[in-house]
């Protein structure tokens, strides 16, 4: 998808990352391949299934044993992204790639796109239609919350076609912290 691209936060910990990618707790090389990808389809306007994809993602992270605060951040970011698709778009997907050091989430949708990203990043700004707000959704906290929870956030959007969100969350508890 081509379009306005916009990078919000610079990655913080990329530099000392490479050295520790293959290490586990004891610092030894872990013999395991460590990448798992999950993909969920999200249906627009289907509020009955709201939060299902992010719940599943959250449970997977718990099974992997990520520290609770990280799980929480991913869960909240994924949930808001999922809700954005449900509220605004026709359909979309939520995809997550999990490695020991990072969780990357892509939320892609076919929808109206975001006309003014700066505005959408402001707390309380919302373009959700009234009936959706009456249901208690679309309070204009989606993008600001996602930004708060993720270390890197990239938004690509094409008016009338769709939006693609990339969120990266680093697992900062680990050997590289002590270095």
């Amino acid at each position, binding site marked *: 998808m081509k379009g306005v691209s916009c990078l919000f936060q610079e990655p913080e910990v990329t530099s000392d990352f490479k050295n520790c990618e*293959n290490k*586990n*707790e004891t610092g030894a090389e*872990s013999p*395991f*391949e*460590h*990448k*798992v990808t*999950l993909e969920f389809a999200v249906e627009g306007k289907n509020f009955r299934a709201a*939060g299902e994809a*992010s*719940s599943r993602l*959250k*449970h*997977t992270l*718990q*099974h*992997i*044993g*990520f*520290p*609770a*605060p990280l*799980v*929480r951040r991913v*869960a*909240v970011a994924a*949930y*808001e992204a999922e809700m954005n698709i449900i509220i605004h778009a026709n359909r979309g997907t939520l995809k997550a790639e*999990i*490695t*020991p050091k990072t969780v990357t989430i892509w939320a892609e949708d076919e929808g109206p796109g975001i006309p003014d990203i700066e505005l959408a990043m402001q707390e309380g700004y919302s373009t959700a239609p009234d009936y959706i707000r009456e249901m208690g959704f679309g309070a204009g*906290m989606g993008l600001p*919350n996602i930004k708060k929870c993720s270390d890197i956030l990239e938004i690509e959007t094409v008016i009338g076609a769709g939006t693609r969100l990339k969120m990266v969350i680093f*697992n900062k508890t680990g050997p590289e912290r002590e270095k």
Partner: protein
Amino acid sequence: MKKSTYSIFLDEERCTGCTNCIKRCPTEAIRVRDGKAKILADRCIDCGECIRICPNHAPIPQSDSREKTKQFKYTIALPDPALFGQFKTKPSPRQILAAVLALGFDGVYEVAWAADAVSIAIREFIREHRGEGPWLSSSCPAVIRLIQVRFPSLTEQILPILSPVEVAAKLAKEETSWQLDIPQQEIGCFYLTPCPAQVTAIRAPYHLEHSYVDGALAISDLYCELREKIAGAREQGEPVKATALGLTWGRVGGQTRAVQSDNYLAVDGIYNLLQVLEEIELGKFDNNIDFLECQCCQGGCVGGAFTVENPFVARVTLRRMAGQLRPKLEAEKEQKVLEYNRKGYYRAEKEVEPYSIMSLDKDIAKAIYMVEQSEKILKQLPGLDCGSCGCPTCRTLAEDIVCGIATETDCIFKLREQVQSLAEQMLALALKVPPVTLVQRQIMKTQREVLELAKRLPPVLAKRNQKSNQKKGGEEE
């Protein structure tokens, strides 16, 4: 720290391996192996759901025996507020207290009275920490463990306030020791508990290093004797200290009323709680709520596994009984509680820690690998969640397989597929007639029939295979 204490045991003789309980368990802690249900110790939270669902009454909740009271010079009974809703004859609260004393204790200390004080402590805490919520109530141990196991990121939001029974034991010991000049070690406090989760909480407390309570006796065990004693008890003994607010802690909504929070939610029943906590963890509620009253049992503690009366009846009885007490604490008593509260009397000694026992392996990289494998296995399983493999869902079987505690052929459908292919191989072999022999038609006919039988799929799976065959066909084109 690992917790593997729990208070529910399975009577192997009674268990028929019917798999009813494995589906009901909110933490997926039960498996059926060799035809008998087994509890995974780390995961059991003592919620009592298996006790409620089992048609054969195989899960047995354990409490302490009354023998234990003999170890102490002076014994104090701590009756839970839920006890007051248990009697159809509608005795007065005073009669009930007298009957408890008549069981052979030296003193009675009302947990409801401690609940009055705890309510004030919670109210003050929430007032001081407005906007940081939602704060989760901390008196139901099954809920605490549910949060530790399933929602570890929410442990920080558990109120750091002791539960009423701990406060009651603390106060009872201090007061008695001071009044009667007995050293505190010689005083035994025994909780008349509505549920097995409280028994575990006393053995492995979550807010304290050591519990102030010395033992927990099941209300249901004492029920018959209590009824007799009530019949004989006249209005005697000490007047009731607790207020109506303290007494209603035994039922859902009581805590919220006592805490006087206007921004609250009261949730009872473990499945409702699972849903609400899930939403909180996803950030759905944001900061709209200050206080979440959580009770694992339907109706609150009156629905505990050690209670006798129907919980709905008990709720009404409890409310009526509360009407006989004074509505709230006198101003001077409240001042006293506030003074204690400032000194931190009701504060927890330690924070509730998360247990990440749901994780597959300590090594994150390995765990990721295992998740990947289990996702692959899951795709091969029929997805019926039928429970015949002894696991609650196909997903749990997949996880158990990667953890090495189950095999793929535990799934009866997988087993059947394998038998089928074995049968085919055997038939192919059998059909091979040595060139020197005559072909015996009859034999071949029966053999074909056998093959037909072996190919037949259970109706639930036929559709799936049809679909996948179609798919395969499509690809080939």
